[in-house]
């Protein structure tokens, strides 16, 4: 078990190192930071002074190490637009995003998992076909189209709900539904195929042959085994709590992290973009780590042979 934990932790750290390296490489490849930050017609002496003060004349590996050290100190640079620390700007947007993504996550799990299990247990029935059709539709309708259609129907035509902004809980209804429906469809489709896989396994036949009632076999043998792949995808959804609403926040003018990211990308506010990138990566890696630990609890086989799960 300790060995399993160690390997997982090392992989999580490796992923973080790769993300930081990615940010560093992309930042350096994109051009001379001095020229990017200062205007193109800045006097050469000023550019030289800037390079000196930021250590841009040092060998690249020294810059790389210093970049790591700064990130460990929590120093992620200042926003180029208003000079405030990027981390502060991002942190004050986080609650707004979570106010959308956490209820949406509950909808996804509450609708998607039962629908998938039900469809699998009643394979080829009318309900199964309906669930699968909805699931395919949920996957192929992009969130911005779904969001705009909901606005057109519920805000413009019926006038029941506001179309954008963040003044009251009523403003959150449409974005949460938009996020929830799409995710529920993905989860339903995934859960269904995981359940079908498990239902066809020999141990199910054995259990039934022993005379175990169908509902007991499903509860005791099928559900726990189907939970393993389903937990993976739920883990991915938990990991994207911060980053999963980029498009939907834009559709509904919701002032969250995603909106900030889009504006920062459009303005090439690199410090803010980099800060969000690292924060999203950290959330994702933590969620994956928790999922890996859950695997250990759900599936005793993985504790014995950790490599088998990764290939």
């Amino acid at each position, binding site marked *: 078990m300790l060995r399993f934990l160690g390997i997982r932790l090392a992989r999580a750290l490796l992923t973080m190192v*790769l*993300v930081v390296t*990615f940010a560093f490489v992309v930042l350096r490849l994109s051009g001379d930071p001095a020229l990017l930050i200062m205007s193109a017609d800045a006097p050469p002496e000023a550019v030289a002074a800037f390079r000196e003060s930021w250590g841009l004349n040092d060998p690249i590996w020294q810059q790389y190490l210093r970049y790591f050290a700064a990130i460990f100190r929590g120093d992620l640079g200042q926003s180029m637009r208003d000079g405030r620390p990027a981390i502060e700007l991002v942190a004050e947007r986080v609650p707004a995003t979570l106010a959308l993504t956490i209820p949406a996550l509950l909808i996804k799990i509450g609708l998607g998992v039962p629908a998938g299990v039900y469809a699998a247990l009643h394979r080829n029935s009318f309900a199964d076909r309906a669930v699968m059709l909805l699931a*395919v539709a949920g*996957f192929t309708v992009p969130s*911005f189209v779904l969001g705009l259609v909901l606005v057109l129907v519920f805000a413009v035509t019926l006038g029941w709900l506001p179309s954008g902004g963040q003044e009251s809980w009523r403003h959150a209804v449409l974005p949460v539904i938009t996020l929830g429906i799409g995710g529920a469809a993905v989860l339903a489709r995934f859960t269904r195929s995981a359940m079908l896989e498990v239902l066809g396994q020999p141990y199910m036949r054995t259990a039934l042959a022993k005379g175990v009632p169908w509902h007991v076999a499903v509860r005791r043998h099928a559900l726990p085994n189907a939970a393993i792949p389903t937990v993976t995808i739920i883990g991915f959804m938990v990991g994207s709590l911060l980053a999963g609403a980029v498009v939907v926040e834009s559709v509904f003018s919701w002032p969250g992290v995603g909106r900030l990211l*889009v504006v920062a990308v459009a303005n090439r506010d690199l410090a803010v*973009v980099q800060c969000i*990138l690292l924060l999203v990566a950290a959330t994702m890696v933590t969620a994956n780590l928790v999922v890996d630990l859950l695997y250990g609890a759900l599936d005793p086989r993985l504790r014995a042979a950790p490599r088998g799960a990764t290939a």
Partner: protein
Amino acid sequence: MSDIPLDAVPAASAPPARKRARLPGMVIFAIAWLLLMLLTALAADLVSPYSYTALDLQNRLTPPIGMGGEWVDPLGTDELGRDVLSRLIASIRMSLLIAFGATVISAVLGVSLGFLAAHFRGVVEQAVLALVDFQASMPFLILALAVLAFFGNSLPLFICLLGLHGWERYARIARGLAVSAGSQGYAAAVKGLGASPWRVYGRHVLPNIASTLIVSMTLSFPEIILLESGLSFLGLGVQPPMTSLGNMVGYGREYLTRAPWILLAPSSVIVLTTLCVSLLGDWLRDRLDPTLR
């Protein structure tokens, strides 16, 4: 998981072959729609009634047929009096071009890396697997936005960027299948006859795993269309004066209440196209590849 050799799959789980010979209606519809899209994209200049950038400020926001419009502009006009049908045709061409380009790039990249990993094993394999883990564990939209922020935007860069989407899936499949092919007789036999690695992988392993790869391509093609249209919708993808489906929806949003047809036309095309590719992919998967589900 992908290390399981193909012949280890229990025969019981394979569907009875050739049970239904005729095509299901949905699949016929999907193929017809995709052919229509493909022809539209190829013959865009011939079928387009006007130039997609031609302004007609006299006739702004005229409604389409069915909403009180006339045959002059069958799908209505936008805020600058440009014909929505002509813009739609240009957008279809652009979106399909990007999606095809990106799908091919990611398939070639993924398969090459997967074969490299399978051929050299050891350090190379571990490096490829680490990259695969990294790619699979990050939301691609965020990585793409970061790259766009750092590099700015141009069409070739944008296509290459989207080509990085989903390569890890091809790499996993190609590596797994190439490893299992290596342990089967035919690859060893050709190698024993003195074939170079290029020949072994290109002429013998690749055709044997092609059906699985094609199925993966039909799965990632709609994802790339959705990604492209999402980024263009945010104003960070295809830049004006060029137009794409997501781009049209993004600009049409401003006129949601007054002229919903500007965004409804491209939205329906996005939804129908991704739906049809998914349907076709699911059907192909059932036919070609019993090992995937």
